[in-house]
């Protein structure tokens, strides 16, 4: 009757290579499981290759063609020549031309430009008279790395560029003075730049993981099946899972900002309430993205891998580690899709430049848009059935 036979003595246990056979058995099992988990396997290959290519090309610590604005208070051929010469240094790229000081300040405050060149009224006449007038170059020095190379070589480069200029001639020295003004962070202290940046980076990391595991955890623990059989809608599941963590994120942000202010002496020049409100928006955006991963991933490991895939570019392409303006255009487009990029501009602008909402429209809208996009994907991706 019985078909299961005990192992006979001839098939008994050989224990001579026991250690190796058991290790081999475990190894073989792991390889099989690894091969079956296609997504993890693909990520193992894709992550290093993609990230290396992406970041290898994108990161540039001596950036060129930095977005700049010019405040023109005098239209003259000499002024045009000087601007042309500045552009020829390859450090500056003039994207805005304004005639009003307020506009000029706003561009710098909002982070739309890193440099502003001010051509004062009566500039050409003063040059001709030999008065050596001042040409003001204002730099947003919140990120010392981005500004320093350009500022450092300013005098020499402009002179070389203007050497054969019609109006200047082969003068031994420049007939005007270049006065560089490093705004917001005159001492070029990198912690002033890094600490606000860390607020965003730390929040990204913690918030993503919180929600990235939320749906997959329900699936793995078997609670999703009964949840789906109850009358609750995908939007309700999502909001119910995101909102508690907004509070957690808010506490985190509060702690980091306080440590930044009291331990590292980073100022908060702008409105604290505005900082709190926009930080909340940023926290919600990250939670929404984490939640979206959670609806796509099939298990918790995949959710963590996805969060990591998102976190690394957030650190490297957002302007946290390397100057945003120094990246190639395509990398800047990638950066614009990351909430951290926008939040870094916001948090640096509010803390270091005393920016107001008026300066931050674009980045606020971008954060809101990214959050809504993630939420829409999450709600449509959320499977209401087990099909």
């Amino acid at each position, binding site marked *: *009757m019985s078909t299961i036979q005990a192992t006979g003595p001839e098939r008994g246990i050989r224990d001579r290579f026991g250690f190796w056979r058991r290790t081999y058995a475990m190894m073989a099992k792991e390889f099989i499981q690894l091969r079956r988990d296609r997504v993890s396997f693909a990520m193992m290959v894709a992550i290093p290759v993609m990230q290396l290519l992406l970041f290898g090309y994108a990161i540039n610590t001596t950036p060129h063609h930095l977005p700049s604005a010019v405040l023109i208070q005098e239209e003259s051929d000499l002024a045009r020549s000087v601007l042309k010469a500045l552009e020829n240094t390859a450090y500056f790229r003039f994207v805005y031309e304004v005639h009003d000081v307020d506009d000029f300040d706003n561009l710098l405050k909002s982070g739309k430009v890193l440099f502003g060149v001010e051509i004062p009224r009566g500039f050409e006449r003063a040059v001709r008279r030999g008065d050596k007038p001042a040409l003001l170059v204002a730099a947003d020095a919140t990120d010392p790395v981005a500004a320093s190379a350009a500022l450092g070589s300013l005098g020499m480069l402009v002179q070389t560029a203007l050497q054969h200029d019609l109006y200047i001639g082969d003068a031994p020295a420049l007939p005007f003075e270049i006065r560089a003004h490093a705004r917001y962070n005159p001492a070029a202290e990198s912690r002033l730049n890094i600490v606000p940046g860390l607020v965003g980076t730390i929040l990204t990391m913690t918030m993503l993981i919180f929600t990235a595991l939320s749906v997959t955890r329900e699936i793995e*623990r*078997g*609670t*999703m*099946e*009964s*949840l*789906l*059989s*109850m*009358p*609750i809608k995908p939007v309700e599941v999502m909001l119910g899972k995101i909102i508690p963590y907004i509070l957690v994120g808010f506490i985190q942000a509060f702690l980091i900002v306080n440590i930044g202010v009291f331990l590292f002496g980073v100022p908060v020049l702008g409105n604290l309430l505005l900082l709190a409100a926009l930080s909340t928006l940023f926290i919600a955006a990250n939670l929404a993205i984490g939640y979206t991963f959670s609806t796509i991933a099939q298990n918790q490991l995949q959710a963590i891998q996805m969060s990591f895939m998102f976190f690394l570019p957030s650190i490297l392409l957002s302007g946290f580690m390397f100057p945003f303006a120094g990246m190639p255009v395509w990398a800047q487009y990638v950066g614009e899709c990351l909430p951290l990029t926008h939040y870094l501009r916001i948090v640096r602008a509010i803390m270091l430049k005393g920016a107001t909402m008026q300066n931050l429209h674009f980045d606020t809208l971008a954060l809101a848009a990214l959050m809504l996009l993630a939420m829409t994907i999450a709600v449509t991706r959320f499977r209401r*059935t*087990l*099909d």
Partner: protein
Amino acid sequence: MNGGNGIAIDVKGLSKSFGGREVVHDLSMQVRRGSIYGFLGPNGSGKTTTIRILCGLLTPDSGEGTCLGYDIRRDAEKIKRQVGYMTQRFSLYQDLSVRENLEFVARLYGLADARGAARDMVKRLGLSGREEQLAGELSGGWKQRLALGACTLPNPQLLLLDEPTAGVDPKARRDFWNEIHALAAEGLTVLVSTHYMDEAERCHEIAYIAYGHLLANGTVDEVIAKSALTTYTVTGEDLNALAAELIGKAGIDMVAPFGSSLHVSGRDVAALETSIGPWRERSGLHWQKSHPSLEDVFIELMNRSRDNFQ
């Protein structure tokens, strides 16, 4: 009540495939309101899939029908409000307490007094004093009772229970079934899947499904009668050897040991009796013609369906 025709579940021609493998094939069934309907069949026979289709968790590839008068394809959301589904695997939150789990369910269904409803259920379940215990720390039997309590909390009209007593001790199983009968007496319709024959016999009606096909349904007596199976019960010595000799003989469809006796069954009475003839006179063996048990019928159905569908 919805539908109002005394039928809680009425489906026709349900089919569902996963990755090219048909798990449910052309399944039709009717379940009367207020009855306990048992769902039997081997593992992987499509019981869980059918239950999931009924509560809107899966969409059938083909087929149609109503559950509590609502269309199973279009009105999944309405069905969810009226149906309590108890999953095979414990699916309450292990890291929430008994009370917290019940309150969560009560709130999801929008009960006016979620706390009160949870409190009453704790009392009904006999869990008073253990409200704050984590659900994950309960024993298997209590977990099942709690899960049943969570399902019945929103006053559903239909309960779908997927192997609710798997791995639960006999005493807890009996208590569980007493509770199910009490609920049915209150007018609830219960569809319950199980592997246990004694549980099947406590159902008003049963359906046997294997390889996605519904093979038999009706009351227990009807199913046994329809099987047209004849069974001889043999007692005596060395039944193992006897079984080995009998297997495969013409007319003998099944030989199965039952404790100290052996059940020898076949659909063709004449052929069966011819085949067992030589052994009937053997000394030390006592042969008795008897009714097949439900288990005989099911195992025979399963053997036959394996030949047909695999």
